[in-house]
Every structure is written in structure tokens, then in C-alpha cells.
């Protein structure tokens, strides 16, 4: 006899609740999610059409750096159009012509409710003509990565970041993802940290860490220390972790040269106990590190900007060359040198290369199966003095 009564009560209750919902409040987010340069002669200005737009801008990024325009392009009156989170306004106005010749232009984005605002800097410049006019075609030149330039992340000061550039970052780590799981960790307790006394000056220390109780819930119990040229998009870190690592993403990682050799110095110490994804000990298995560099076509078949992700960084059909240190196992007696040549699956297309149609991802990790959340907590990879030998 209770049943029909309760049914009526449910309906009455639900109706009461539904009737008292308030009107939606104005949005309080103030993000630029996309930016696009509009010009009348795109072929003359952009090396590739995809360079005109920055899509899927990460939620914490406020320095927006476009790939360099073709040499001698006029940057004194460029309109940049923005897509923001709903309702947000941009000042100066989206699409207004601005002068980028004297450095970045500052835009302030204010949320619809007026309560929040963020300041963005947009960088656009033309490539300097003839960077190395005297370099003979066959002679090797070098890009050096010394890892001396690191700082705490500007938004939260929770973890370290690395860059070889004054503005923005060409290196990324999984540290932002670790901060989601282990918000209480100090900067030097993160998987990727600077090591003051390296081979020469500071080095980078990558250590496979336990992600704590949150990691157990999402079944991502470890975080391998990693460092790679690209972008880490933490919004995917818990939902689709393989999609969070954008290898070779970003304008700094486009190349117009032919990488030949990846070299540098490392030390590796495997952690004590190798565990699989479900924290089951794998008897007899010793963890290994991974050091490699990949060259890939940075535009997909639809003409959109392309980067590698955790699921395809070694398997994508966009890949044209790979240099990988074969066996990163326990080292003895200090720093060990590595030098591996790029193995070209396909020859580079000269015209595409001239237009920076290839990008390079340089990747280091303390656990080779870290992307699958398998490895040994405590595995440590030290990296210093990395260089890429290349030819024009």
C-alpha cells in the first residue's frame, strides 16, 4: 500500500525541484581557445596554411606563439581572430589590426560575468632571411640542449618547466598531470626535476614516481619522469592520458633541416620492483629508460596541424625518421655518452622541408612502458648535454 503513495511523492518532489532552478549565471571563464591570423595572401605569408591558426590552446597557456611567417612578411598590421570560452570578451578586439613588429601584443580576456580576466601575449614575427648563408650543404651543424634554462611554472609555481627560448616553452613534461594527482608534492618531488650538478652545469633528472591514492582510483599508479619537445595538455591527463602528451607540438619544434645524429649523456638506475598497470609485481623484469627522437610530417592529409601522441609516437604513418638509443639499462661509473643516427624510413621532401613541414620530437623517459603506467617506482634517468647534428 506504500508504493502508489511514494510514486506520487516522487513526482511531486521532482516537480518541486525542477520548478526552482535559477537562470543560468553568466560564464566565468576567460580562455582563448583558438587564434587565427587572417591575411589576404596566405601563401605569401605562411610557410604552410596550418601555421595561420593555433587550435586547442591549453587551458594554462597564456603566451601564444605563432610559427614564424615567411621572411620579409609585414607584421605591423595583422588582424588576429580569437575564439574564446563562451561570452568572454577580448581587448583589443578580436580581429583588430595590431603591430607585432615590436614584440608581443598583449590581449586581456574578460569573462562574461566580469569577475575574471587573463592577460595573453601573442607573438608573431617573420623569419630572418638566410639564417646560415655560409653553411656548406654537406657540413654538420648542431642544435644543443643544455637544460640550464628552467623555472617554476608561472601559473602555480608547483613544478619545474624547461625552455630554450625566452618566451614560451619548447620542452614539456608530465609534471602538470602529476600535480593533479599529488597536489601536495613539492617541486623537487615531481617526476621531472632539475639536477644542479649534471655532466656540465645543470642536468635533468627523470624519476618514476608513485601517483598516490588518486592514481589508484584512475589506475595510473605511476608517473614516469619524462621530458620531450612538445606540449603537455593536462586536460586529457586523467581521461585520455595518451592524448595529453603532444610530442613535437608547437611552433618551436618545426624544423627546416635534416637531423642526422642524436647524442648526449645519461645515467640510468632502474627502480627495485617492476609492476604492471594493476600494481602486480612482474618477477624478474628490470625497468629500462627510453631516449629517442622522431621526425614527422606536421600536417595531416586534411591540411591541419599534426603532432604525435602517446598512442602513436613510434608508429604513426606521419613519421619519417627515428633515432633511438637501443638499450637504456643500468649504467655504472657516472655519465655515459650516447650517439645514434636517425634512420630514415622515407626521404625528406625538399619542398616540404623548406616550408618547415616536418617537426621533431625529442623524448626522454625513466620508464620505457611509462605511457602504459608500467615500470618501477624509483627508476631514474639523468640527461644532459643533448645535441642534434643536422644538415641543411
Amino acid at each position, binding site marked *: 500500500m506504500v508504493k502508489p503513495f*511514494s510514486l506520487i511523492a516522487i513526482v511531486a*518532489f521532482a516537480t518541486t*525541484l*525542477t520548478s526552482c532552478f535559477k537562470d543560468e549565471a553568466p560564464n566565468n571563464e*576567460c580562455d582563448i581557445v583558438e587564434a587565427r591570423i587572417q591575411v589576404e595572401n596566405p601563401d605569401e605569408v605562411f610557410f604552410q596554411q596550418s601555421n595561420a591558426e593555433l587550435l586547442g590552446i591549453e587551458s594554462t597557456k597564456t603566451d601564444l606563439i605563432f610559427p614564424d611567417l615567411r621572411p620579409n612578411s609585414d607584421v605591423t598590421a595583422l588582424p588576429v581572430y580569437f575564439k574564446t570560452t563562451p561570452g568572454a570578451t577580448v581587448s583589443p578586439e578580436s580581429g583588430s589590426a595590431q603591430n607585432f613588429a615590436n614584440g608581443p601584443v598583449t590581449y586581456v580576456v574578460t569573462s562574461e560575468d566580469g569577475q575574471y580576466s587573463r592577460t595573453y601575449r601573442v607573438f608573431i614575427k617573420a623569419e630572418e632571411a638566410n639564417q646560415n648563408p655560409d653553411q656548406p650543404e654537406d657540413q654538420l651543424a648542431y642544435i644543443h640542449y643544455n637544460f640550464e634554462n628552467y623555472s617554476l611554472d608561472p601559473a602555480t609555481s608547483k613544478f619545474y618547466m624547461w625552455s630554450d627560448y625566452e618566451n614560451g616553452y619548447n620542452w614539456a613534461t608530465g609534471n602538470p598531470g602529476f600535480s593533479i*594527482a599529488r597536489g601536495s608534492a613539492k617541486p623537487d618531488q615531481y617526476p621531472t626535476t632539475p639536477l644542479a650538478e649534471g655532466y656540465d652545469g645543470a642536468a635533468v633528472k627523470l624519476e618514476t614516481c608513485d601517483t*598516490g591514492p588518486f592514481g*589508484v582510483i584512475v589506475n595510473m599508479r605511476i608517473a614516469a619522469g619524462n621530458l620531450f619537445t612538445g606540449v603537455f595538455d593536462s*586536460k586529457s591527463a*586523467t581521461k585520455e592520458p595518451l592524448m595529453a602528451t603532444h610530442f613535437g607540438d608547437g611552433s618551436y619544434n618545426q624544423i627546416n633541416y635534416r637531423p642526422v645524429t642524436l647524442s648526449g649523456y645519461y645515467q640510468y638506475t632502474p627502480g627495485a620492483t617492476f609492476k604492471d598497470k594493476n600494481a602486480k609485481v612482474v618477477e624478474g623484469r628490470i625497468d629500462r629508460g627510453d631516449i629517442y627522437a622522431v621526425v614527422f610530417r606536421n600536417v595531416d592529409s586534411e591540411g591541419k596541424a599534426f603532432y604525435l601522441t602517446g598512442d602513436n609516437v613510434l608508429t604513426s604513418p606521419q613519421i619519417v625518421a627515428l633515432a633511438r638509443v637501443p638499450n637504456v639499462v643500468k649504467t655504472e661509473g657516472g655519465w655515459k655518452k650516447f650517439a645514434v643516427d636517425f634512420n630514415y624510413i622515407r626521404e625528406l621532401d625538399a619542398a616540404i622541408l623548406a616550408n618547415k613541414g616536418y617537426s621533431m620530437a625529442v623524448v626522454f623517459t625513466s620508464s620505457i612502458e611509462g605511457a602504459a603506467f608500467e615500470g618501477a617506482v624509483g627508476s631514474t634517468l639523468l640527461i644532459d648535454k643533448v645535441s642534434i647534428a643536422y644538415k641543411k
Partner: protein
Amino acid sequence: MKKTIIAAALALLFGAHSASAFGIFDNLNYQARLGYNIGGTMPMGMPASIRGLDSYKPRPSFTLALDAYKPLTEKWGMMAGFHFQTKAMETDARVKSYSMEMRQGGESLSGLFTGNVVTKTSQLVVTLPLQATFNVSDAVRLKFGPYFSYALNNDFSGYAYDGYLREGDPTGQKVELGHNEGERGDYDFSSDMRHWHFAFDFGADWYFSHRFGAYADVQWGMSGVFRKEFKTIEQTMYPVYATLGVMYKLK
């Protein structure tokens, strides 16, 4: 034995002094009640951050009660008793920029969540009501009065899913939460709930035979379910439950 327990309880409730002054143990009659509770733990006036309710499920909730009734005049009387109640529900709400905190071990992740939030609440409470009664007729008695409850067991937990969290404030890092277990954000605020509650109860008893009757009650919480220091859910959440049930006059 039974009478001793009830007497002791009533003595506790009223205090020994007033009990003797009233001569309260004279002329009492007792009812046993069995009821089904339905309701929810909710804010009074929805905040704008709650955009809609996709589902509301009452979870099996029962009242087992023993009341003592004392007529004071022909129409007016008093009622007091012991109620054991479970109050439980589950909701799935659509939220926008809703204050959330996920905690696990010593770690926490907090911010503003936009998406769906499933909330499961349940409380096992002992309630001591004291009600004024008015006999509308021989068969129908109206009741109104305050009560204190003590929660023996509290649960307020659930998960945020299909949406994203802005860590800290709307300018913070965006963290997407997925649909399936392992992709969503679990929360548990059970330990932030208070044990003592103050509330009002109003309702009616209807006797359809000499001994048997039906009754309906509304228990309207006046104190929020959470401790004052708990700030994650910004609006105060009140338990509001209705009970429909049957009763039996023991004496």
C-alpha cells in the same frame, strides 16, 4: 520491560522534574509505526550552479518508531517518541561551475566543475520528536513539533563525470573527467557531516480501525547536514523527507 524503557526515554526527554509535575505517565497510550521515507538532502533554493536534475532516485528508507501520546484536553495533547530512520537518495544533477573537491588519502583536487554530478546520501538517525497534537476527529490527529536527531551513520558521496574541472578558480588548469569508472572524479564528504540535527516534524495520524492507522509526516531539517567549517558545497544542504506509513496502537 517495554514500559520501563519508554518511561526512561520520556523521563530523559522531558526531564524528571517536569515529568513529576505533569503526572505525565498517567493516561498514556503507545503506537508502533512502520513507514517509508522519501525525500532528499538539498539546498533551500537552488543555486545557479545547479542547472538541472537528470535523475532522482529514492533509495529504500524506512522508519521504525514508537510514540507515546498523552491527551491534555479533549482536543489537545502531546506526543513524544523514539524514531529509527534511514534517509537515503541518489541524484544525478547537471551543474555549471559547481564547487567540488575530490579527496583521496591526503591529497585533494578542488575547483569548479561543469558537467554531471552524482550524489548519494544516506543517514541512519535516531530521532526524538516532541509534538503538540490536535484531534480533528476521533480518527484524525494532527501533529506538529520540533525534534532532535542523532546520526549514527552518515554518507554523502558520489562522483563528478562527463565534464571538466577548473582547478582552484575559473582561470585554473582544466581537468576533463570522463564517463566510466577510473575516468571520473570520486568524492566523499561523509566525514564532514554533522551528527546532531534539529528539525521540525508535522503530519497527521488517521485511524481506520480501533488499533490500525496510517500516517504521513514531513520532517523538515533546520540544520544543514554538513559542519559549519565545510565550505566545498557552498549552499547549506537540508534534509527534507516525508514519511508514509502504518501504525498500530499498542495500548
